[in-house]
């Protein structure tokens, strides 16, 4: 490990437990996107398609719980934006700081709290939980990290906590720094 990488690693590890990137969703939760999601996996759950069922069970339409992170991914383009907007910025910070050009997500845990309703504008923050020592897998050599994303609605109610494990790496043998 070079001195630069050691410094970068120490800098990243100093952020463990710190709330980063408090953000507010770019757009309100909307039903058409719920249908787009349901259509992509042929999900016919009447809770999302039948107003009477939604009214009876959830007091009106809700979004599928598994969509929670969808409400936070920025549009691919927005007027006036000069930098590429990346969801899960901490993940990309780690890749850049540690000089790991490729990355995959390996584990993902989501705990669902208050249902997401149409018109909600969600807010979120990210918390780095850990960065591993260097490891070699079939993909290459790099490091595993765990990032929590905490989602709340506009009333401050906890909506979900998502915990991602990522693996940032360099491809091939002998390329580890």
């Amino acid at each position, binding site marked *: 490990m070079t001195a630069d990488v050691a410094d970068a690693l120490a800098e990243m590890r100093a952020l463990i437990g710190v709330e980063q990137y408090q953000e507010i969703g770019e757009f309100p939760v909307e039903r058409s996107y719920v249908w787009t999601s349901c259509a*992509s996996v042929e999900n016919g759950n009447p809770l999302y398609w039948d107003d009477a069922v939604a009214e009876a069970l959830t007091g009106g339409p809700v979004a599928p719980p598994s969509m929670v992170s969808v409400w936070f*991914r920025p549009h691919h383009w927005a007027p006036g934006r000069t930098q590429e907007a990346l969801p899960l910025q901490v993940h990309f910070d780690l890749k850049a700081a540690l000089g790991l050009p490729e990355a995959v997500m390996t584990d993902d845990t989501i705990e*669902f709290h208050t249902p997401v309703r149409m018109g909600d504008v969600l807010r979120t923050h990210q918390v780095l939980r850990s960065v591993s020592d260097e490891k070699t897998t079939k993909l290459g050599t790099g490091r595993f990290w765990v990032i929590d994303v905490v989602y709340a609605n506009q009333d401050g109610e906890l909506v979900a906590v998502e915990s991602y494990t990522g693996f940032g790496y360099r491809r091939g043998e002998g390329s580890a720094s």
Partner: protein
Amino acid sequence: MTSTSVEPQLLLDDVTVGESLPALNYEVTATTVVLGALATRDWRPMHHDKDFAVERNGTQDIFLNTPNQAAWFERYLTDWTGPHGRLARVTFRMKSSVFPGDTMSLTGVVESTSVDDVGCGFVTVAVTLSVDGEVKTTCAARIALPLSADDNPWARRGDQWRPSP
């Protein structure tokens, strides 16, 4: 709106530990992958650009992204539970990727049933997404089910809803 009574499709008492959920088989195409990526607002090129996936990620093709797999798992579980089923917690582990041309197979086994301290019924299900018998992703899911015809896990709020045991 007038109140409609919706009969639960599945009650906690209907479920036996060790029982298998009906399997779901689905032929994945490039459209499945791209549709899933766009539906989850994931614009990263390895989910729509085959050249990028091959040259940069070193994979054989574009592949299903994680949030879309989450949507597949949710659909699989709620096909079984019906609309009363309320997802509490899921843990995915991605072992390898799912590509166009794969026939993915979702299967599930009930691992436990329980009623928590505030009277909410839960099942845990081990769901597996595999292709040609090779496990691609596993999902450990905890999902609430009604205890009786007039019970509704979605009605729980605040301290009455405990998604983690």
